[in-house]
């Protein structure tokens, strides 16, 4: 099993670092650049949601991203100090204009659902959460 982890503060300045971490550790295991990019996007979207919404961009809040390659499955864990939100409760299609912000919404979660095969969410003792996403790598792309 290949395993790598990254600890980061809840600030959007860390999004490029997260992308670099994912691509550096998975490049040798995922030959398709399109699939590698899809996975990078799905992970960044998950992290961005936690940074922006769960932790209100508080750089003192520490999150941990863990990648585990087991056989032909990629397991992605995000350990988040904030309480979980239910990805499954969001509309299945993105909203072109959200009534509250007058901007497009739901694109990130829609992308996660299109790219990732399984998502498990757990509330941990003390109110923190773990997001566990699974990507089957033998499928080149779900699109």
């Amino acid at each position, binding site marked *: 099993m290949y395993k790598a982890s990254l600890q980061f503060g809840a600030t*959007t300045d860390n999004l490029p670092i997260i992308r670099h971490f994912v691509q550096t550790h998975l490049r040798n295991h995922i030959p398709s650049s399109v699939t590698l990019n*899809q996975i*990078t996007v799905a992970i960044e979207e998950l992290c961005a949601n936690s940074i922006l919404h769960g932790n209100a961009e508080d750089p003192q809040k520490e999150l941990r991203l863990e990648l585990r390659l087991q056989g032909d499955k990629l397991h992605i864990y995000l350990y988040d100090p904030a309480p979980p939100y239910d990805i499954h409760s969001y509309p299945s299609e993105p909203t072109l204009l959200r009534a509250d912000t007058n*901007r*497009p919404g739901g*694109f990130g979660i829609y992308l996660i659902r299109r790219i990732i095969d399984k998502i498990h969410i757990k509330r941990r003792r003390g109110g923190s959460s773990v997001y566990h996403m699974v990507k089957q790598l033998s499928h080149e792309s779900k699109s």
Partner: protein
Amino acid sequence: MQIELLSGSTDTHLKLALSGELDAITAPKLYENLNRLLQQHTKVQQITLNCRGLTYLSSAGAGILLMSIDNFTPKGITLELTEVQPEVYNILDLLGLTKLMPVNHV
């Protein structure tokens, strides 16, 4: 993210090169830049964004492109993307944006 006005632009057709990464940090800057250019070029009917140098697009970037279409269409301005990298095209396609605007890939 960088945006550059290309030679060959006319009063009615802006040709721009978009490069770098379009994410939650950089996407608002693209929107500001496009709107500033439209204030400077009031006769524009078409904007072509050459995306050969665009290496990454997140949902925030896609959202800004969609907001731009919504903003430009009532003004009679069309937005098209050219020479999009396969990785970026795939994300636009997953989101359905390739059906909402002209997009061609390298």
